[in-house]
């Protein structure tokens, strides 16, 4: 079959909501877009462990510590589900890991911000995971089967992440004036970077149209951002905190909040590697890879020994 005939059949299939599976014919650009998107997503899960690990030894109670450990373990698992989905597209996980370590591949810019206080761990769960969930719920309906299935698993696990984060912030918000101040400060610092997680505005997002046509994405960046704001403002009000946006106003006509301008210079600056923690995050990943080498070698030697014994 001719390329454009194949392309036409592919589009028909996608339009009919039939999932694309690994061995099916797919346009090269569809494959490339997915590899890039899924691996970036996987890298984000893995790097996302770092800001949280920063507070593991200083969690204020055993309960909080166990929860945080479980959450961080989930993030590692989510990274693995996603690498597994990416590998069905014909790449090797090792290649993807090398792309992260060399800086060739990107991860979500949000993880280049520091977690300065314990309240930040709450804000990360509530806002960062909350924003991620908006995106991930949409992606359960993505056209690529393995990606969609990985997202279903992730969404099931992720909702506890957001709730535990909100619980931390809510607890601080009804504590002493200092604790409430800490919660407000965390909201102030994480609000805008969380909005940036949805990516550039629709009129400045050149890949969105194609991704929507192929149903890789089902909603645009601005649509998801709007949903997130509508939900989160109400949650902040419920615990007596103020969203740090003086232009935030309910728009009766649209049925959504209008919000102030996002600082896109900051967004691009962080993506380009100049955020507060980019270098620290990359160094932590490289160190983890290098320091884990002996473990990988030992596992291999142990497997060989076990095989020899069984023979």
């Amino acid at each position, binding site marked *: 079959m001719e390329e454009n005939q194949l392309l036409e059949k592919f589009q028909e299939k996608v339009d009919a909501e039939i999932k694309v599976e690994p061995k099916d014919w797919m346009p090269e650009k569809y494959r490339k877009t997915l590899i890039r998107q899924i691996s970036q997503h996987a890298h984000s899960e893995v790097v996302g462990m770092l800001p949280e690990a920063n507070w593991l030894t200083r969690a204020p109670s055993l309960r909080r510590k166990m929860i945080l450990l479980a959450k961080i373990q989930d993030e590692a698992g989510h990274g*693995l589900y996603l690498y597994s989905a990416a590998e069905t597209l014909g790449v090797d*996980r*090792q290649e993807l890991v090398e792309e992260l370590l060399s800086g060739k591949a990107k991860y979500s810019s949000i993880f280049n911000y520091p977690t300065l206080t314990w309240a930040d761990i709450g804000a990360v769960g509530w806002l960062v995971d909350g924003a991620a969930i908006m995106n991930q719920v949409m992606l359960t309906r993505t056209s690529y089967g393995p990606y969609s299935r990985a997202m279903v698993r992730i969404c099931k696990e992720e909702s506890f992440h957001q709730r535990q984060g909100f619980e931390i912030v809510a607890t601080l918000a009804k504590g002493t004036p200092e604790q409430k101040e800490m919660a407000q400060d965390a909201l102030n610092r994480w609000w805008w970077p969380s909005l940036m997680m949805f990516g550039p505005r629709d009129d400045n997002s050149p890949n969105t149209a194609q991704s929507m046509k192929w149903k890789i994405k089902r909603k645009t960046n601005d649509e998801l951002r709007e949903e997130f704001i509508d939900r989160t403002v109400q949650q902040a009000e419920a615990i007596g905190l103020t969203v740090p946006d003086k232009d935030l106003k309910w728009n009766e006509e649209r049925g959504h909040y209008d919000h102030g301008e996002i600082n896109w210079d900051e967004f691009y600056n962080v993506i380009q590697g100049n955020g507060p923690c980019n270098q620290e995050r990359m160094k932590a990943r490289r160190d983890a890879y290098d320091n884990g080498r002996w473990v990988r070698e030992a596992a291999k030697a142990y497997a060989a020994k076990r095989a020899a014994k069984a023979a």
Partner: protein
Amino acid sequence: MSQENQANWPLYEVFIQSKPGLAHKHVGSLHAPDAQTAIENARDVYTRRSEGTSIWVVPAEAISASSPDDAGEFFEPANDKVYRHPTFYDIPKGVKYL
């Protein structure tokens, strides 16, 4: 790192039985140095919330699959055999347990 790449652990496909009596279902894959380690890691990756009572791991390269390009012709023989379904048959009104 390229040397390590060559010595990469093989890929195992993971199948989980969620409770006794149900079939094992494909959940994803992982790399491991051998099958035993693959099972142990699959437990940590795929059953953190008691999703399983049994795990199978299969080397990905051991799986043979039908070709999606030929799926049309390959599955075609079943399409015109509606008499294989109970709804094909006319049963007089009022007759029960059929």
